């Protein structure tokens, strides 16, 4: 069975909610929509306080090419456009909407009927995806239309659908593949048309045999689409790891992108959203969010409107457990701890994981014993112990030379460290600083041209 060639770990899977069908979360009364919920420039608000909006109506437009539109997830009145704290307590521009009923904007097909035919051209498909504000829903929130716009001189030859969901606990992609498999595969054929390839692979880890069987059955009708079962290994859902696992090609270090090896990777939930956008005119206003954790009374997969407060999801799952120590936006490996539970669900939020105090607390760090376990675990072939040391010493030049920008922040190094060193904390700081330095350098060089 295929997998990526280097590094990786296998944390306990804990897919508590994998057998739970997707349920609809009752509509939130108040939603908060951050203008920056994707990578790139924040969207520009097109509504002001007091405006009436309909469900699916555009409320913020992409600020640049590398940005995404944002639509209203409910109908009602805009009550504020101001700075509000996000899950990490950092203030961000958000649009607050008070819900009044659920009146949809015109032109959105809300029926369940499957529409297979797509007569649009590649440009039209990409334009529709751009209008619908679709971004990568696996967590990275990279605008999908940017990914699909293959730059001149480069050519894609394979589309890879990421149904890996290697992150422990999370099951939103898994449930989407099971319950919306037909639509998802139509989405695959649309994406293939958009980037002009005749081969597509759906990579799924073999801890989801039901999803593999279900999609394998569906793809028989489609030419060129293949389901690839993969060996369970974290972080297989990383773009570069998945390309290596499925095609055997290795993406060179940054600034190279997957397109340089002819691959375009798209998450399974994103592919379903693409189907909805292109065939049903439905913008990205809701997503499946897994609410899970060992202490959670009722782990669930909830179809949630964007902007619903995280607290409402926790309430729907039986409330915050008594032993809760940490609430994580995302999974335990790559998710971000939250301090503000009234913050909203965003496009990149695939799950809310609640860890007990015992599981969440870190153990006291001791000395590095030079065992090199982190080096063996790093899926990018970096040396985390060294990067972490250099980041502490603020040796940015060395960090850049050591390719710190390749780090995908998967956390394998930290999870495998027998001395419990906060390796990723330092590496992440180093990466952020080095990327800032590179951007500054580029900005300084730009006007000279």
């Amino acid at each position, binding site marked *: 069975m295929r997998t990526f060639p280097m590094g990786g770990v296998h944390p306990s899977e804990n897919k508590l909610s994998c057998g739970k069908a997707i349920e609809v979360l009752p509509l939130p009364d108040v939603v908060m929509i951050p203008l920056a919920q994707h990578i790139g420039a924040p969207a520009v608000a097109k509504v002001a306080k007091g405006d009436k909006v309909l469900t699916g109506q555009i409320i913020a437009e992409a600020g640049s090419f590398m940005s995404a539109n944002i639509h209203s997830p409910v109908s009602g009145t805009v009550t504020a456009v101001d700075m509000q704290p996000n899950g990490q*307590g950092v203030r961000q521009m958000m649009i607050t909407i008070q819900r009044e009923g659920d009146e949809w904007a015109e032109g959105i097909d809300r029926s369940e009927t499957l529409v297979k035919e797509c007569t649009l051209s590649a440009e039209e498909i990409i334009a529709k995806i751009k209008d619908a504000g679709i971004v990568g829903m696996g967590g990275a929130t990279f605008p999908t239309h940017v990914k699909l716009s293959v730059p001149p001189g480069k050519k894609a030859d394979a589309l890879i659908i990421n149904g890996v969901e290697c992150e422990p606990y999370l099951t939103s992609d898994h449930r989407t593949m099971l319950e919306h498999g037909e639509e998802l595969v139509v989405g695959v054929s649309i994406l293939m048309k958009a980037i002009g390839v005749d081969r597509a692979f759906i990579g799924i880890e073999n801890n989801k045999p039901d999803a593999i069987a279900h999609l394998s059955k569906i793809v028989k009708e489609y030419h060129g689409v293949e389901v690839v079962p993969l060996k369970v290994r974290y972080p297989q859902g990383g773009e570069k790891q998945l390309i290596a696992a499925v095609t055997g090609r290795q993406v060179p270090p940054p600034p190279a992108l997957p397109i340089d090896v002819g691959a375009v990777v798209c998450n399974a939930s994103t592919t379903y959203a693409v189907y909805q956008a292109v065939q049903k005119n439905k913008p990205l206003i809701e997503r499946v969010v897994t609410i899970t954790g060992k202490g959670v009374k009722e782990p669930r997969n909830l179809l949630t409107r964007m902007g619903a407060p995280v607290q409402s999801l926790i309430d729907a799952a039986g409330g915050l457990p008594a032993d809760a*120590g*940490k*609430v994580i936006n995302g999974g335990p490996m790559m998710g971000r*701890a939250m*301090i503000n539970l009234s913050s909203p669900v965003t496009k990149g939020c695939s799950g809310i994981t609640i860890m007990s105090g015992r599981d969440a607390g870190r153990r006291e760090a001791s000395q590095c014993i030079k065992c090199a376990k982190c080096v063996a675990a790093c899926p990018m072939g970096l040396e985390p112990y060294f990067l972490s040391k250099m980041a502490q010493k603020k040796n940015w030049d060395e960090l850049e030379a050591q390719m710190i920008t390749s780090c995908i922040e998967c956390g394998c190094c930290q999870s495998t460290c027998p001395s419990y060193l906060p390796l990723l*904390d330092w590496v992440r*700081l180093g990466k952020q600083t080095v990327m800032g330095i590179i951007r500054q350098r580029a900005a300084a060089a730009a006007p000279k041209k």
Partner: protein
Amino acid sequence: MEVLLYTILTLCVLGVLAAVILYFVAQKFRVEEDPRIDQVEKMLPGANCGGCGFAGCRGMADALVKNDDISALFCPVGGGDCMKAVAAFLGKAAAEKEPQTATVRCGGTCEKRPRINEYNGARSCAVAASLYSGETGCSFGCLGFGDCVTVCAFDAIHVNPATGLPEVDPEKCTACGACVKACPKGIIELRKKWPKDRAVYVSCVSRDKGAVVMKACKAGCIGCGKCEKVCAFGAITVENNLAYIDPQKCKLCRKCVNECPTGAIKLVNMEPLPKEPKTPAPKPAAPAAKPAGSETPASAPASEAAKVSSAAPEAAKAE
């Protein structure tokens, strides 16, 4: 015996040969360097702190000797006297700068600014700041992990365990600016150094609205503007819900200290103005002025209390 003799002799001959070669090579490739660089370097404090913008004192000495105009160069450690001496030696005009000292502009002590979550990642302000807003409700305030303490080459700044805030020792502080650069929240500022280390400054950098500040911290500036109105010298400006006292215009009249409703304006090494009968405001302002200052009261029980409050299992812990 013979072997030993030959060995010693051979080594001696080799040594002499190498010395002769090295002598001629050194003559041939000698780098002509201005002897004044060495002398200027000796006049500089030799702290190699980087406060001047060069990697060390040698770099600064080199620049001082080579540049005709040295008015842009200043050694914060040596101060005006050192620069004057160097300028006199080189026959150039020295830059004049008034003495400064680092000032920590956050009054959010453990009791004034309760913790709402527990951070257990790497103990560094820079790391914590890159992850989230901090252990307290204030997203602007001091994180308290002491990045400023780590970078200080003069042992002049320390985190007081009782308050959880760093305190500057004005005797040792040279205003090199290392802590200012290290603070990810931009809390530390270099301010004019008054005689007897007196100071009046707004001990808050929160640009949040008053209501948000009040909720998070009892010692924050709420941007009410009372101080701005009372200042006779136009030294105080309120921008983005935050008051700022311009150290160049401030005359230490202390009127603003009594006006501040939250005690965010700190008074150091000075007695507050006598309480005026008509204004009830001075009362809360006066006690707040005392904890700040050069003296470092280290009280162990208070630090114990801080630990307990941080360990309390609150809603969420941040990584």
